[in-house]
């Protein structure tokens, strides 16, 4: 309990409170603009947080994350354009409600559901996270090595549509992580006598390029010249029927449970949580036929599900150093920026920071209740009148200012540009980007752990797999990698037997 009381004392000061309020508003705005997404916004924000207090920086990350998950519902409901990938399921019933003149009501439901999902998820993080961290106190260098490898393998295999390309991306990230001075021997690797490479490939610069530039290039390709008309953004107040909100409680409970479970699993994201919650609500309803035609429970399930994924995805990230999704990987990057090594020791070494961040996830979910809703939606929706083509240079400028202020080097701008263009094409050929960043974050930890473990065992490699926990983690890693191969072989044999029957 002291853990949270101390953390709360840190959070309830002017800096973190102002950061949370400002970032939640900014998050709703980012979520509401199709083409902008939370990952891009957090990537843009991170370079600016270098000189800030870590709790202020993490408060901003929490606000943007939770705010944008709700913000995505605004264009989903008003225009059937999902603001973020996680709000696709919100369009199914949100837009039909808007067509019936109930847009204001749908937005209120989205607001309440997002807040409830976020709060449930933050409570799960606050209870499960520290427990999991206690287990990890038993870990030595061999276990840390396997945790890093397991994290990369599972995200690499599960995050994209092609496991081989996912693993390839993780290996690329690991290799990029070796560029620069080797921490253990002091040897320069892959630096080609360039002094600017001695410190390694700058993580945040690559991250901003990989995550912010591809959506900007896609916006450029779309080149929206008009923006939206004022008429499309008009709202009419519709009151709730008696008992209507009470009827949604089972939907909220189910969606929260589903979102939290999906969040803990590595690789799955808010969009999967929203789809699963929506389908479960539909199947459990007395009138499943009304879903897709403007059933408020459809909006409630989707929005509660996608917000319940948020804080839960931080459980493996904070306790094990394995991010469940890209935003969790960005939070780990934020910790690295402030000199903290993600992973099991984090709860021991920086309890106020970890506890504070959990509190911030909870408080920003609560803030949605006050900052969301129909009135603020009217304001946020107005930004959609801006032609999309003008967002392209604006975001590019923000990327450049963010990257330049890190080291004050022009070369970082070129690295960002190259990483961004590479990211654009890699995504197009189904190579996921998250494992690259994860490899860069976890690579140094994996290398140092394996080399320490081998030093302790005097070069005996069997030590890596003979301790019970490391053996379990090694087997889990092999299973994670072999599972897609087994699935592919089964699919092939069933296809062949199907063809044989014909």
């Amino acid at each position, binding site marked *: 309990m002291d853990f949270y009381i101390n953390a709360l004392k840190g959070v309830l000061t002017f800096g973190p409170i102002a950061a949370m309020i400002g970032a939640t508003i900014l998050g709703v705005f980012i979520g509401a603009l199709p083409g902008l997404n939370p990952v891009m916004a957090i990537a843009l924000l991170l370079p600016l947080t270098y000189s800030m207090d870590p709790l202020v920086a993490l408060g901003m990350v929490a606000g943007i994350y939770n705010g944008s998950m709700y913000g995505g519902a605004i264009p989903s409901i008003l225009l059937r354009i999902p603001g973020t990938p996680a709000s696709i399921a919100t369009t199914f019933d949100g837009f039909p409600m808007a067509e019936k003149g109930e847009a204001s009501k749908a937005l209120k439901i989205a607001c309440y559901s997002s807040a409830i999902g976020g709060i449930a998820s933050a409570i799960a993080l606050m209870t499960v996270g520290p427990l999991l961290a206690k287990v990890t106190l038993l870990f030595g260098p061999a276990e840390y090595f396997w945790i890093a490898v397991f994290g990369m393998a599972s995200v690499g295999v599960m995050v994209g549509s092609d496991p*081989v390309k996912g693993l390839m991306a993780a*290996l690329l990230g690991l290799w990029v992580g070796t560029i620069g001075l080797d921490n253990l*021997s002091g*040897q320069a690797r892959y630096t080609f006598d360039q002094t600017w490479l001695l410190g390694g490939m700058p993580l945040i610069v690559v991250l901003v390029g990989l995550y912010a530039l591809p959506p900007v290039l896609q916006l*450029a390709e779309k080149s929206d010249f008009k923006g939206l008309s004022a008429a499309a953004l008009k709202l009419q107040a519709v009151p709730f029927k008696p008992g209507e909100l009470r009827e949604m409680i089972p939907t909220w409970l189910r969606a929260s449970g589903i979102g939290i479970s999906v969040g803990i699993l590595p690789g799955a994201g808010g969009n999967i949580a929203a789809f699963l919650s929506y389908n479960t609500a539909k199947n459990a309803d007395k009138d499943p036929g009304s879903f897709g035609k403007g059933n408020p429970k459809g909006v409630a399930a989707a929005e509660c599900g996608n917000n319940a994924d948020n804080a839960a995805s931080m459980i493996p990230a904070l306790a094990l150093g394995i991010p469940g999704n890209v935003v969790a990987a960005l939070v780990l990057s934020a910790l690295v920026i402030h000199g903290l090594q993600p992973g099991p020791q984090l709860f021991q070494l920086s309890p106020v920071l970890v506890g504070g961040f959990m509190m911030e996830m909870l408080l920003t979910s609560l803030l949605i209740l006050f900052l969301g809703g129909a009135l603020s939606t009217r304001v946020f929706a107005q930004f959609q009148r801006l032609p999309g083509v003008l967002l392209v*240079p604006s975001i590019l400028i923000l990327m450049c200012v963010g990257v330049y202020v890190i080291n*004050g080097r022009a070369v970082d701008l070129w690295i960002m540009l190259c990483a961004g263009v590479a990211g654009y094409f890699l995504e*197009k*050929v189904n190579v996921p980007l998250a494992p690259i960043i994860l490899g860069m974050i976890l690579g140094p930890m994996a290398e140092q752990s394996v080399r320490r473990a081998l030093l302790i065992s005097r070069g005996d490699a069997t030590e890596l797999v003979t301790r019970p926990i490391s053996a379990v983690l090694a087997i889990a890693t092999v299973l994670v990698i072999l599972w897609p191969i087994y699935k592919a072989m089964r699919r092939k044999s069933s296809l062949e037997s199907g063809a044989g029957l014909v």
Partner: protein
Amino acid sequence: MERRQDLSLGAIFVVLGIAAAWGATAYSGASGIYPMVLGILLALCGAIVLIRAIRSEIAAERVLIDAPVKLYAAIAVGVIYVALVVPLGFYTSSFLLMLALPFALGFRRYAYALAVAAIFTAIVYIVFSVFLERPLPREAILTLFGSGG
């Protein structure tokens, strides 16, 4: 399309992996073994993608670029911007980018673009130079007029 893309992707990663492994031979002891193993695994994954693409008979449609002219225009303007940020100064080059990039993409409402460029540049100046006091590349125009800037 998809087959050709995967052939190129696999080949790029095979070359990158071999180059990384070969480069690692120059580093002594454990410093070299780890990146060498990574290079070999990277080349192996690339080879799997390559072999799969060679054996695949389906040439499914997968569009690499939706609007090539606009994409190349955006990248070209972006490259010029990055090249000009230091010599011209951050705000001058950013203001020019706000006008040039929408124009290159076909936006022709000049007054609108000018107004947004002026407002946005002013906001960026207030946030980054006034509030956050971040050092950004100095404006060449100020040096030209001999101001301290």
